Every structure is written in structure tokens, then in C-alpha cells.
């Protein structure tokens, strides 16, 4: 069930003087069951790219295939695509509107035209998957905390049973615990259901801690597409495009300069701890 982008170009206002070439020759494949981080500074084309994944924008040039089929062919149902590729926007809690949590999560599957029992079963499962127990079902979504609201919004997309879940900065504005909870739930979800997750984030630490592959965007092109250790090895290049490496990477670089035999490519606290302990023992 992969999603494949072939030489995708997108130009905003292509027939005007103000044309902006937002995506340039993007080739990318999102296979089954992968946790992918998408990073890039403001205006690098991340959001434009994300909106191509579920057919909200049509490429000016190039093709997008879902499960081998061109999504812009007439016979391809956008409704089906959007139930398979779920998109959670920034600040999704602003889109909550129902009287209680359960009804809000039912809204998506109900619109798919599913029978009532199926709709409710999906909503129930989605809410449990994001870690909200039954006691929240009848509460107004507006009385929940920021992190809880966001989980309701994510459940609303999960209830569509997507094969690919795309989240645009799901932790913006949350406190550190709320951030860890959301990302922990998403990682858990990925393990439980085997779906693919694309995480758009400005936090290099979050990306380093959770994803297995990082796609770096710059000026509408893919700059790097690799495992975190490799991508964060390019500290200079990342800084040049307005990004950074995780903070532990900087610490390790500094230690190397001072003659410690540590692994510079460690990207998480646990990896950094282990390589420092090792270096001290053998040194």
C-alpha cells in the first residue's frame, strides 16, 4: 500500500507573474509501516508536499501513485484516497465542533457512509488507541486540556482507518509531558496497527527520538532522505538551511574536539550516555 511521488512539481499561481515554484522534482516513496520525519524551515515546501499526499493539491507536473494507481486518474476516488491517507493539520483542536468527544470522532466515518455500528466501533477503537478512556466519551471536547483535545482530533482521523497518517506539527504549543504523550501514543499506534506515519516537526529532538527515516526539505527540493544518524551528521548543511541537529549531537561534537572517543552520530540521550560512558571507560 505504498504512496509514491514521481517527479512532482508544484507551482503556485503558475499562470501569473507571481508564480512560485514550491515543489521541485520531488521523488519519494512512503512504504508500509514506516515512521518518517519531515523537516524543513518555514517556507521550505513541507506543507505543500503534505497537501499532495492526500490529493488536496494536484501536481503541476509529475505523478502520484497510491497502491500503484495514479491518484489523479478520473476513476480514482478522492474519498477513498482521503480515508487511506489521513491528514492531521496544525492545531487540529480548532476543528473540533461536536457536543461530545464521541460524536466528534464519529463524524469522519459517518461521512464515509458506514453503518452506525461500524461507525461507533471505529470511534471507540480510535479513542482507546490515543489513550482516552470511556469516561471522556460524553464530555464536551472544549472542556479538555490542550493535549487531550489534540488526541481527540487525532482520533477523528484514525477512525477513518488510514493506512498512512500524516501529522503536521502535532506537538506545537504543548508542554513537554503532553508532547511526549502524543508522540508516545503515535509510536504505539504505529506498532499496533502497522500504519505508516509522516511527522512534520520543528523539533529535531522529537524527530531524533521517534522516527526511522528523515526527509529534509529545502527550497522545494529534498535535501536529504536517510536514517537520523546520517541526516544529523550533516550539521553544517542543516544549519545553512535554517535547521539544526539535536542538542546531544552538538555536545558530542564538542567532546570529540576535546579528544573524547565518542560516537558523534548518536542522536538521542540514551545513545549519547552510552557512548560517553564507553569513552570514559576505555579512555
Amino acid at each position, binding site marked *: 500500500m505504498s504512496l509514491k511521488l514521481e517527479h512532482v512539481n508544484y507551482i503556485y499561481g503558475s499562470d501569473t507573474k507571481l508564480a512560485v515554484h514550491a515543489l521541485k522534482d520531488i521523488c519519494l516513496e512512503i512504504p508500509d509501516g514506516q515512521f518518517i520525519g519531515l523537516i524543513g524551515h518555514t517556507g521550505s515546501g513541507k506543507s505543500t508536499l503534505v497537501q499532495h499526499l492526500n490529493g488536496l493539491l494536484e501536481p503541476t507536473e509529475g505523478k502520484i501513485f497510491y497502491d500503484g494507481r495514479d491518484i489523479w486518474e478520473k476513476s480514482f476516488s478522492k474519498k477513498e484516497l482521503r480515508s487511506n491517507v489521513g491528514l492531521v493539520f496544525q492545531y487540529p483542536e480548532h476543528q473540533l465542533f461536536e457536543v461530545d468527544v464521541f460524536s466528534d470522532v464519529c463524524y469522519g466515518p459517518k461521512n464515509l457512509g458506514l453503518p452506525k455500528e461500524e461507525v461507533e466501533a471505529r470511534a471507540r477503537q480510535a479513542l482507546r488507541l490515543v489513550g482516552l478512556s470511556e469516561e471522556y466519551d460524553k464530555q464536551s471536547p472544549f472542556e479538555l486540556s490542550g493535549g487531550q483535545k489534540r488526541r481527540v482530533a487525532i482520533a477523528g482521523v484514525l477512525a477513518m482507518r488510514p493506512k498512512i497518517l500524516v501529522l503536521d506539527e502535532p506537538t*506545537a*504549543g504543548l508542554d513537554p*509531558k503532553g508532547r511526549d504523550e502524543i508522540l508516545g501514543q503515535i509510536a504505539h499506534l504505529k506498532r499496533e496497527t502497522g500504519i505508516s506515519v509522516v511527522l512534520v516537526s*520543528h523539533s529535531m529532538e522529537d524527530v531524533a527520538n521517534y522516527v526511522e527515516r528523515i526527509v529534509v526539505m529545502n527550497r522545494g527540493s529534498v535535501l536529504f532522505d536517510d536514517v537520523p544518524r546520517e541526516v544529523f551528521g550533516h550539521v553544517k548543511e542543516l544549519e545553512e538551511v535554517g535547521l539544526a541537529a539535536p542538542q546531544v549531537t552538538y555536545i558530542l561534537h564538542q567532546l570529540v574536539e576535546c579528544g573524547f572517543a565518542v560516537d558523534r552520530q548518536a542522536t538521542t*540521550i540514551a545513545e549519547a*550516555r552510552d557512548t560517553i560512558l564507553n569513552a*570514559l571507560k576505555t579512555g
Partner: protein
Amino acid sequence: MSIIEAAHVSYDYIRRDEEGNIEGEVRAVNDVSLSIAPGDFIAILGHNGSGKSTLAKHINALLVPSEGTVLVDGKDTKLEENVWEVRQSAGMVFQNPDNQIIGQVVEEDVGFGPENMGIPTKEIWERVEESLKMVGMYAYRKHSPNKLSGGQKQRVSIAGVLAMHPKCIVLDEPTAMLDPNGRKDVIRAARALNDVEGVTVILITHYMEEVIFADRVFVMDEGRIVMQGTPREVFSQVERLQKLRLDVPQVTLLAHELQKSGLPLPDGILTAEELTAELEKLRDAG
């Protein structure tokens, strides 16, 4: 004299039903007393819903206490006749850069505040120029704010507050929506106006790294101040902070993990330099 003096401040949000009857009350700030000296760089931490934004809104009289008093530069915020002066003394910058810019051109936006204060035109332009230079946005003075990045917009918002010559500026999660570079630029601008201009800065944030150079850190929970001290004192208490749904800077966390694995490191390491120096000591001793 302190620039901000809060004495036993409590604030209740009152929920009303459609007829206006009181449905319930939530005490968002609970008996908070604090005093901030002119020229300090203060950070306020706390999880979502801990009351930090509610407290911040008291500093420029967007909210007035249900109980207790807040004095800004000696003026009681509760008195209607003080509101203008209080807002001139204490400016505020919010989280979302798109909600606080109104001008069509950067320099017009920055001039809006002083213009409203009735400042003569010539002086407005002087203030606009000086404020934009302060935040490193002077080169963009003729640009449309729409074309700026989030970090640039936030710096324009800060310039807009600076142009009113405040004694104190409250930044309520100014970097929450920004990319790493934008975040760095905004924090750099805030530090510069504190260091160079001596403006009192009160920074509310979820990014622990942004507060390591603050003079004092306050941690809020359930409307109260539950911890306060220098960054080193506060961040030494890793487990306590985690219980409060917070975090410590990554360097501090790494040092804490190394401590737990048996390395004799001091508490509250805040920078990569400190950690490197401590590890070098250990290596040379071993």
C-alpha cells in the same frame, strides 16, 4: 523599587450559562506573590493549564486580580485610570505571529503603538527605526508583513512593543510556532533588549533551553508558584520537574543520566561547555 509587584494575587475564571447565571468557577491563579526587579530576565515555566498565561495577562492589565493586587511600576492595575500607563510600561507579545500584526508595511505596523500614544510624527519615525534595528529587522522596514517568516513576524511584533518604550515586556510563548532559526532569532532579540537596553523581560515558554540564561525562573502548577530560583537551582531537580509535566534542557538531562550511571557529576549542568569541562576533569583524574 520593583517594576512588578504582585501580592497574594488570585484569579477566578467564571463560567456562565446562556442566561448569564454562574455555572462554575475555576481558580486559575492562586495566591501568587512575586516581585521583579527592573532589568531582570525572568522565565515562567509550567504545563498547559498551570496558570502562567493568566498570570502574564495581569502584568499589562488585560486581566485584573479577583483578589490581591498587582503593581506595575508602582501603579495598581485594578484602577481604571492607570490602565494606559500600565500598558505603556508593560508590553506583551503573544504566541501566534499572525494574530498581532495589522500594518500593510512593517514600519507602519511598528509605528502603530507610538502613534496611538500621541507621539509627534518625527519621534515616531525615530522610534520605529531604533526598534527595528534592535530586533534586526530594519532591512525589512518597507516589506509587507505577509511575506515574512514566523520568526521575522515575531520580531516585528516585539519591535512594535519596543516602539512604545516599555519598561517591561512580557513574551507569552513567542517561539511556540517557529522553526529552530526563527526561535533562535527571537530569543536573541529578547536577550539583546534586556542586556543592552535594560528592559525587563518576562518570558513564558515550553522550551527549557531558552531559559538557561534567565536571572530567575518561576515554575507554576495549579495556579501557584511551586519552584523558583536560578536556572541552575531549578534544573537541578530533574525528577521534580518531570512530575510537573516539564523537562530540563537536553544537556542537563544527559548529565543527569550520566550521574545515574555512576559518574560523579555536579547537579544542574546547563551548557555543553560545562559538561565537557566536567567530563575532562573526570578523564584527567581517572
